[in-house]
């Protein structure tokens, strides 16, 4: 659980990534000796980008990693996800309030937002929407300065100390999960601490979003919304260890839970591979809300 914003290759990277970087460096040397200095400058950036991509597990790097996984190489220790059991959600919005309290957010900054939905039969239900932590996060690809990063545990985080405030990520997010600090943030209610991608502190002119309370997870604590939900709707899960747990303490085998309850992902058709699973209970119409 280390931030992956460094320009250097993080120490824990799989060896094949180092190999890739090496490949680019050797190509750069080749060109430099050929005297194409300008192109070499560009290649430095290319190889830097490779490092950044590798650090954030881009699809390309992931493919190589998976090739190694097949041969028994190291895999990430966790792959965080969330399961939202809509059968029990009564729309009380305690999740939203717990989150806003913990992260010092304004009322309109709903990192987890409860939408009132209407199903095909005209019935209504409630649908909490945190960050979907997409495996192919559209927001990450469009950030001009790479301030949106993806940890190897699958958390899509924002480095608020790097964010330029282009809001390209807000345009790209199909789930409207990002919120901007349009004005000065609320005065801190607790002792101020330095911002990290895992525990961001709102900063004027930067974007913010749900982080699954990434600072809590390594300690084995539950995210604020999960802990707060009185109905046990929200589960925090780990796809690697195959466990999910909700606030009241119900602990399940994740894969069986998803299968037995016919879990679906929202806007599956966009190919973002979200890591939030919804369990429908009453025939709610989740798909097709483009």
């Amino acid at each position, binding site marked *: 659980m280390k931030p992956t914003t460094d*320009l250097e290759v993080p120490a824990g990277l799989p060896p094949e990534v180092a190999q890739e970087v090496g490949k680019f460096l050797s190509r750069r040397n080749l060109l430099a000796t050929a005297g194409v200095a*300008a*192109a070499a400058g*560009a290649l430095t950036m290319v190889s830097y*980008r490779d490092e*950044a991509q590798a650090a954030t597990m*881009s*699809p390309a790097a*992931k*493919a190589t990693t*998976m090739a190694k*996984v097949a041969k028994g190489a190291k895999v990430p220790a*966790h792959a965080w996800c969330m399961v939202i059991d809509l059968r029990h959600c009564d729309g009380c919005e305690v999740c939203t*309030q717990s989150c806003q*309290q913990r992260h010092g957010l304004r009322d*309109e*900054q709903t990192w987890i937002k409860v*939408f009132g939905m209407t199903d095909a039969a005209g019935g209504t239900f409630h649908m909490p929407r945190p960050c979907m932590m997409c*495996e*192919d996060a*559209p927001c990450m690809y*469009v950030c*001009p*300065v*790479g301030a949106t990063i993806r940890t190897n545990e699958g958390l899509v985080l924002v480095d608020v100390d*790097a964010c*330029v*405030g*282009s*809001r*390209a990520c807000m*345009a*790209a997010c*199909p789930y*409207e999960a990002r919120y901007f600090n*349009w*004005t*000065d943030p609320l005065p801190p209610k607790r002792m101020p601490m330095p911002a990290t991608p895992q525990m961001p502190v709102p900063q004027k*002119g*930067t974007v913010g979003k749900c982080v699954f309370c990434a600072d809590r997870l390594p300690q*084995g*604590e539950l995210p604020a919304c999960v*802990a707060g939900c*009185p109905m046990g709707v929200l589960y*925090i899960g780990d*796809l*690697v260890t*195959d466990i999910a*747990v909700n*606030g*009241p*303490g119900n*602990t399940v*085998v994740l894969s*069986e839970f998803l299968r037995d309850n016919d879990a679906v992902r929202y806007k599956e058709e*966009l*190919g973002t*591979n979200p890591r939030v699973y919804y369990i429908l209970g009453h025939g709610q119409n989740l798909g097709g*809300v*483009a």
Partner: protein
Amino acid sequence: MTTQALTTQAMKTLAVTAEATSTSARAASLGPFGKPSRLWWLTILALSLVVLTGIGAWVVQLRGGMGVAGYSDQAFWAIYIADVVTFIGVSYGGAVVSAILRLTGATWRAPLTRLAEGTAVVTVLIGAALIIPHIGNPIRLYELVTRPNLSAPVFWDFVAVMTYTFGSIVFFALPLVPDMAILHKGHKEALGSRRVTLYARVSRGWVGAPAQRRVLAGALGLVSIMIIPLAVSVHSVLAWAFATTSRPWWHESIWAPQFVVAALYSGVALVILVIAGFRRGYHLEALIHPRHFVRLGFILATLSATYIYLTFADLLPGSYVADRGTAAMFTELLVGRLAIWFWLFAVVGGLLPLLLVALPWTRNVWGMVIAAILVVPMMWLKRILMVVGPATYDTMTGIFGRYHFTWVPVAITLAATAAIPLLLMLLFRVVPLLSIDEIEEIEQMQEVNDLERNAARRRQTGSGESGADDDRLVGAKGKAHRVAGATGVLALVALMGLLAVGSAHPAQAATPHSGGTTSAPAVTITGIEAGGLMQLTATLTSPHGKPLPNAQVAFLFSTTEFGAQARFVPLGSATTDKAGIARLTLGGDADHLYQPTAKGPQQFVATYTAPGAQPVTASTTVTVTAARSAYTPAPAKPLASIGNVLVIALFSIVAAIWLTLGTQIWRVRRVCQS
């Protein structure tokens, strides 16, 4: 047919005035260098005030945040990005007038090129500067260089805009060499000491030798070829910043070409306005004729028709298929809240200019200037619709958010608009207003052509000429807040209470109960790994020591992943056989998917609850050797792997462009020195 007739007419007009222009081009270029009139000073003062107000508004926005500009999470992109698109768009007008007309050998361009290129440079610089108020944290813009994300369209926007700016400056600067040489040589007294120094430096070594002319013409030809795809790339990449998102109406393949045509359309309109303004302000009527306006008007009309067509082609397929988001967007645009603005654009910004060019009695300087005055703001309006519409559409709820202008972005937009004439007026205090050398060169060509044509015509017939159009001159002219306090505190108290209850009540209450009641049955558990699968075996005995058949034994495992206090995860249950033994193989069948995910010791629990009794449990710790991760990453996107190749190719192209552009300056410099 008409165009052909007009072309011959214009050639005639040019030929007739050929002798006069050569001197008037020089005189006209020197005109702005004299003592400025009171009107000039007043204009500069007024424009500066507008620009300063805009800068003041930007400072207000820096202090208060972008919220003061009317932005909210419902409208995350709005006026500024529309301004960027508009201003960078209009700079394409310079490229079309100079580069395309140069390449097609349209000699009538000569008196317009300098003004058009100057407009291109000035507007692209203003457009690039408008990114600053658009950005929430402009002080960090340097990160585009220090830590770029090479998959981001916005980064490539930056690269494309920078490259195009460099190209425009080279294209603007190269023809200055002969012009400055002419003025430095023949009109030193009219230049003033500072311009003399500048002109001497720029034109050092230029004598107009054939070798020099050949090199300069070659360089300009190459740059004019390059500037066209460069401009196409800028407007395309700007469009892709929108089109690469999954928002309705943005995610359209037609957006890039539509942006390019929009840029050309608004750009030609701005060139008409700039030319009209300078023609009147500096009395260039002898050089810039109504013909020029009509010709630019024809280009404008062609582009207007093309843009109307593209707009229709943009809207038809989405309206026809009408999936939810697109249908909502187009309904809002065509018949909803935005309809009045869209149809205003369609009529005033599309049809009316077309009509003004098409109707013979408005096909004059006034008509063209009015058409241009309509096009420029209407194209800005179209960009506003294109940006604000999809940006305010909530893809979760399908509801449109609101965006309201405040005085801040209005002031900044007006400042950017005022900056165009301001910077142009200042620019043409420094550099000559007309490309003297080009005009004179074309005059020489015209004279030769004209002599030949006149001779030929005299030989054929003495038919009368159709009357030229009259040379009339023209002047260019906000939410309810929730009760957070009390509810928040109550919710927090309730939350803490729930947490306490939750943690005091571990799942399944699987604490081993041993001893105590002797009447309780006993359970034991063992686990072994066999064939890579974990087999759990529980033996259940009655209080009397006999095996207990047909009883449901539940299996669990413990985890400390979510808290130091172990949580127990149910694995399923099995029924005891006659020997009182229940078996469960993890991953053994479709109902039991769990398999150990980490090597090392893992605790398993068996529990049995007799009807109406306390549960009995037993636990065992097995050292797992065959573990597997339950996680399978999503497959990589099919085309993701070509990203690196593409990046290297793009960087090579950009490097080659910069190198080539730089080389052209160096070529011209070298031939001047030899």
